[in-house]
């Protein structure tokens, strides 16, 4: 547990370092392509951007994530339904009870948690989940999210969501401007062509790399959150039966790719669960491991 918390705090710092370095390199290449005399200016922009991005991802990641996912405050009925479960499990985990919100989704059963630490955590569940799950299953899902909160998984995962988004946007802008300005500016020096090629390759690779970070961090910790969630409720079958319901029920959901790794189960079903690019382990494997506990 404590190693997990320390690792998440450390990884968050490393992530900031990697993303800042990536932005500086990207902007250096942009400058080389557009106008080498502006290198200094571009690097300053990159530094400002990564500083702002870091601040935003640390202090406001929960608000950013919540606004991307379109959540709302729970109705009194939903509140009554969830409050006891959340308070009970927070006591069991020894953390303050998180604030909770509802995702307007009457079809899919899903949930996520975000925030920078247990004191600022927010738990989000879909309205369909509240209607479909019985108390035991709801406890299973909430306990899974509770252990993400307890482990500081939420800090790292939410920072990934925001910082990855920034890198993706920066490389998109670069690639699109290439698309439109191609062919012009014949007075470029030959050196520019090399930088142009490196720039394009990097702009294509950067989002893929950041996505790989997103993946590498999520799959193993889903298993971990399953098992520590089951430890909290002392009832692995509740969570297993929740996963069974989800398996038969969920359909592909339109979710921003930057936040897909935050969810309880992958909202983007079209991606093959076994592939290298899956953010979540296959549901059947999760159920199997829970039943073996």
């Amino acid at each position, binding site marked *: 547990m404590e190693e997990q918390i320390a690792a998440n705090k450390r990884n968050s710092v490393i992530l900031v370092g990697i993303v800042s370095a990536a932005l500086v390199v990207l902007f250096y290449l942009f400058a080389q392509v557009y106008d080498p005399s502006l290198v200094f200016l571009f690097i300053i922009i990159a530094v400002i951007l990564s500083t702002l991005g870091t601040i935003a991802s640390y202090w406001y990641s929960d608000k950013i994530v919540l606004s991307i996912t379109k959540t709302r405050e729970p109705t009194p009925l939903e509140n009554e339904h969830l409050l006891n479960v959340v308070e*009970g*499990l927070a006591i069991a985990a*020894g953390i303050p009870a998180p604030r909770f919100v509802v995702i307007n989704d009457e079809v899919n059963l899903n949930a996520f948690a975000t925030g920078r630490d247990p004191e600022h955590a927010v738990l989000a569940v879909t309205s369909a989940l509240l209607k479909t799950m019985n108390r035991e299953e709801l406890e299973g899902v909430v306990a899974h999210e509770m252990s993400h909160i307890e482990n500081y998984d939420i800090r790292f995962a939410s920072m990934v969501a925001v910082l990855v988004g920034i890198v993706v946007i920066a490389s998109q802008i670069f690639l699109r401007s290439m698309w439109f300005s191609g062919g012009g500016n014949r007075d470029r020096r030959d050196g520019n062509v090399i930088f142009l090629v490196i720039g394009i390759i990097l702009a294509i690779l950067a989002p893929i790399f950041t996505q790989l970070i997103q993946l590498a961090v999520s799959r193993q910790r889903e298993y971990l959150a399953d098992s520590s969630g089951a430890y909290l409720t002392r009832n692995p079958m509740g969570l297993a039966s929740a996963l069974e319901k989800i398996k038969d029920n969920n359909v592909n959901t339109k979710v921003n790719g930057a936040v897909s790794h935050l969810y309880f189960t992958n909202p983007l079903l079209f991606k093959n669960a076994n592939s290298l690019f899956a953010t979540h382990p296959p549901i059947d494997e999760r159920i199997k491991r829970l039943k073996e506990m």
Partner: protein
Amino acid sequence: MMEYNVLGILLVLILVFVYYFNRLNVLSNSIDNSWAQIDVQLKKRADLVPNLVETVKGYAAHEKSIFEAVSDARARMIGAKTIEEKDQAGNMLAGTLKSLFAIAENYPELKANQNFLMLQEELSGIENKVAYARQHYNDSVLVFNNLVTTLPGSIFAGILGKKVRTYLEIATTEREPVKVQF
């Protein structure tokens, strides 16, 4: 050169000592804190009891023995000093409340009373939280005891006089089925 070696070893020893000193205190504080969580729930329950008893009395005034048992258990819990005493009295109160609710089953009008239903709901929520709080207490005790009883933690625990803490036992009333007398 020799002095530096001695100094280095001394420094390492001090650092290790500080680490275990802090660790032992952090863990024992977290046990105290998780007791506080149980205490909060026990207090909430004790506060609801008089209200519940009054409501039930309105419909079943002649069930005197159960009212006495409930208020006895409540008084014992409030008067309890040590953690073990308080936890045991809390379990006793939970047992008597169970019997009270079992008796309430015989009074349809009582079961339809809004106030009663609300109290029942609230008490079962508290019951759940007490169970989770006790679980967290025992989890904290386990982590602490593991440190105190294994090397090298046991050496430092010995120096600092930290002893193994006791788990909260499952109440005897919870092991046996509840007896309801009429």
